[in-house]
């Protein structure tokens, strides 16, 4: 037992001695090396930082399809046969405008849609007027009009294929699609 202890102790002393010797040997050329080492560490760090790196970068990374799939701008609903902006729609449009103000490069298409209880022809005019109502409201909130395009799909593209008031209300809508960013 004692032998083992003395052996390990002597080993430790030998290692400690060598170690101290090395340090002393290396201390002669150190200044440049000490400066270089932290630089290497900094290169390793960015991948860890990336998620914090920005909303802008994430935004820039997304394709138009991905962005539209997230539906950053909410749908606005309308009354039967009408195209005025309802009170509940105003809040949604304010949020949509805020989003557009945040992302200043974005250009959007407002799609006006109608329910099946109007005729094909007249619904085309009505859908466009619904799109125009949202256009005007966004413009009044300071969104530049050259960032907005409008189109009417009449009743050709319902979002809900049902034939009841719930479906009809869903279909009387303005939909916002990002077409440029």
């Amino acid at each position, binding site marked *: 037992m004692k032998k083992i202890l003395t052996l390990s102790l002597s080993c430790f002393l030998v290692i400690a001695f060598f170690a101290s010797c090395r340090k002393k040997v290396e201390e002669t050329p150190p200044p440049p090396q000490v400066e270089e080492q932290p630089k290497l560490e900094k290169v390793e760090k960015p991948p860890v930082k990336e998620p914090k790196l920005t909303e802008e970068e994430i935004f820039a990374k997304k394709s138009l399809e991905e962005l539209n799939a997230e539906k950053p701008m909410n749908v606005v609903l309308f009354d039967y046969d009408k195209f005025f902006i309802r009170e509940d729609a105003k809040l949604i449009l304010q949020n949509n405008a805020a989003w557009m103000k945040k992302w200043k490069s974005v250009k959007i*298409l407002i*799609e006006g849609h109608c329910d*099946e*209880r*109007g*005729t*094909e*022809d*007249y619904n*085309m*005019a*009505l*859908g*466009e*007027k619904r*799109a*125009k109502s949202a*256009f005007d409201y966004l413009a009044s909130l300071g969104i530049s009009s050259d960032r907005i*395009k*409008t*189109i*009417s*799909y*009449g009743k*050709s*593209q319902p979002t809900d294929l049902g034939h009841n008031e719930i479906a009809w209300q869903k279909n009387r809508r303005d939909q916002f*699609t990002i*077409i440029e960013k």
Partner: protein
Amino acid sequence: MIARKLITLACLFLVANFILYPQQEVVMSIKEGMPLIPVAIPNFSVKDTSPEAKDAADILYKVISDDLKYSRVFSPLPKNYYNYIKPLDPDKILFQDWESIQAKLLIVGQISKQDDKTIQFEAKFYDVKSERFIRGKTYQTEKSLLRLAAHKFSNLLMETYGEPQIFTTKIVFISNRDANNELYMMDYDGHNQTRLTFNREKDYMPAWSTDGKSIAYTEFKGGNARLYIYNPFEGKRKLVFDLGTSFGPCFSPDGKKLAFCSTEDESNSEIYTARSDGTNIKRLTFNKSADVSPSWSPNCREVAFTSDRGGSPQIYIMDAEGSNVRRRSFGGNYHDSPAWSPTGDRIVYVSRVQAVFDLYILNLRTDEIIKLTEGYARNESPCWSADGRHIIFSSNRIGTIQLYSIDYDGANLKRLTSKGQNKLPDWARN
């Protein structure tokens, strides 16, 4: 003395009336009320015993009988009448027999097989009373085109009686049977439904050019609703208008002009015209309300359309230059999709009452209105046949939207489509 004075006064009044309100020119042709022409169509004789010739005879016979029944000009006699007389011998026709069962016209058809592919169909028609041959034709065709050969013979009858040849005209429409909305066309009777466009875009609101060779329609693509003129037979397409949402085309009956709608000015739908090739675009309506659904009068001097300038969508008529606008629909709060009859005296349109759409016909001469459909459904997008006797429209009465045919007086309602949803028909004039 007093009487004489009164008479002169009355005369003066009449003359003044005539000067102040000159009679409007009315294009009219008297059609309804004319008796139908009874036609005997004995079974067509088959010259050889081949089953192909027999089958061909059945098809030709059925198509011609159906055409004539549909025509509202001719009336095929009930087949059991033929039992009272001797069977037809094409070489020795006993006209008295045919007269005895009240036939005015006798159709004689003979079918033979030429070779493996070709069927020969010889068709003649006779005036029974005068015992005279009127006209005839021999058609050589392959089996797949027998219906067309039959329609051509029906057309020959129509032409002989001064009627438009509607049986070979095509109907263009929108169907989603193969996924998204695409252009399709079919025969007037619903046969030969053929797809015309193959794209991923949604096509909308087609209209035939006057010569029946091209189709104006809207294509929704990339956030645009552009108006094109497309010739499906040559595969050529031309852009007409790409500003705003452009839709609702209608070619003038003289073939010179195209009317359509666009929202290019402040998102308000207005009516525009162009030459029929899509050039030289001019605006017709100028106001803050929506104007849609233009339809030319047969003489091309006027355009019927829908406008909500009075607060709700109503039918108006204006001169072809956009002036002299007058309202023609009253008594409801939603009228749309006027289509001017080729005979000039009627306009068919859609009226909405509590979310039910029905077709009505306004008689422009008498101001009489008749209700055409009674479907408790959405009956809409009416269009006329070239002879003004029939109307094709869409209806969701069976749950899905399908195309139907109905006569100007509400008779002979018939469904033409069943696959997918089918809508927005337009019937070629040629």
